[in-house]
């Protein structure tokens, strides 16, 4: 859940929708950038995005570790096919293109709050789906907490699901029966409760959607 927690609390004043469009444009621009000059320009644009969106630079660099493995595979494949010098150059250019294709997504994850994104998405999404999505967003932490409680209760019952015991594959069955099944059942019951609660509050009765502003009159 790094992406959720590490979003800067003092994010920039730029609207969430604009950040999404900006990062997606940068990502798409990577497809068209095939020369060292355009890739250099794209690098500067990404740096500019990090500064403008007030993203934490060090955390972004840490997340970029994943690219090293991908870049090595691409460069090696190019060297094997085209030889050392031309293969290395083309492979490296393509690896950089690959990095600049994925980097804006990481910048976005560190620069936008879930509320900003949800507000932007509600403009382009049906209300029904927006409601389900907002419930899911709201219940992520509750679900995680419930999973933790089930896990601890099952450990007390003697289930072999501690991290040390799970090193043995023979104990993996306990993980399914003692943690996964109760979690799925809990998900079902929670969905039932929320749907009852929503219907009892006249959800989806009227054509025009209304939103509670969060304050009692």
């Amino acid at each position: 859940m790094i992406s959720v927690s590490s979003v800067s609390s003092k994010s920039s004043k730029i609207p969430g929708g604009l950040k999404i469009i900006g990062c997606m444009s940068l990502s798409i621009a990577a497809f068209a950038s095939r020369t060292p000059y355009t890739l250099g320009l794209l690098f500067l644009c990404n740096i500019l995005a990090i500064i403008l969106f007030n993203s934490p630079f060090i955390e972004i660099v840490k997340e970029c570790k994943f690219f090293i493995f991908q870049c090595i595979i691409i460069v090696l494949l190019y060297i094997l096919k085209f030889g050392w010098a031309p293969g290395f150059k083309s492979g490296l250019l393509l690896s950089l293109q690959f990095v600049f294709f994925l980097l804006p997504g990481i910048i976005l994850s560190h620069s936008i709050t879930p509320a900003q994104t949800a507000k932007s998405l509600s403009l382009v999404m049906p209300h029904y789906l927006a409601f389900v999505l907002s419930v899911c967003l709201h219940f992520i932490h509750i679900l995680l907490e419930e999973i933790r409680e089930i896990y601890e209760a099952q450990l007390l019952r003697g289930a072999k699901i501690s991290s040390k015991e799970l090193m043995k594959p023979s104990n993996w069955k306990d993980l399914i029966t003692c943690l996964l099944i109760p979690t799925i059942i809990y998900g079902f019951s929670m969905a039932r409760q929320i749907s009852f609660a929503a219907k009892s509050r006249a959800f989806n009765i009227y054509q025009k959607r209304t939103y509670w502003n969060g304050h009692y009159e």
Partner: protein
Amino acid sequence: MNNLNNLSKRKHLEYLLFLGFCAVFIFITKALLRLHLNIPGHSLFFLIFFLMLSKRCVPLSYSASICAILAGLLAVIFGMGKGGPLIMLKFVMPAMMIDFLSYMMPSFDQKYVTCMFVAALAASTKFISSIIVDFLLGMDIQIMMYHSLIKSCGAVFFGILGGLMIPPVTSRLKAYGIID
């Protein structure tokens, strides 16, 4: 979506919310695994499992696809950056395959072999999504094939493992009266 009309609005909402929770589980497992493992395709294990489970538990025509769309939207909202703009494709393509195959084999969850088959085909869509990305980047065709093949091999392996979990889980859920 004909069977939607036969369902009450509350039941419909309940099913959608359950699909939403499956999407949350997909998102959580994908986010957690991303932090600890660097094996290609490992995230397909839970993705395939929850997509197949949502298909089995919710009697809607496109339940796996709806679950995948919700998971994709969550990934977009939290900016799980490895997919760029094509991240939705990574979720939706296996789901569409599961929906299609479940239409062809309605009782796929009852045998391990059919579960493996459905899971393998669903996970193999990673090859297509990988090809699309590499093609748009202008990669050489032969290298594009090798690169996508390396990525999709791991995905198929973990997808099959995820699919193998379906028969025991559904039999348990049947025993608890959660599904018919």
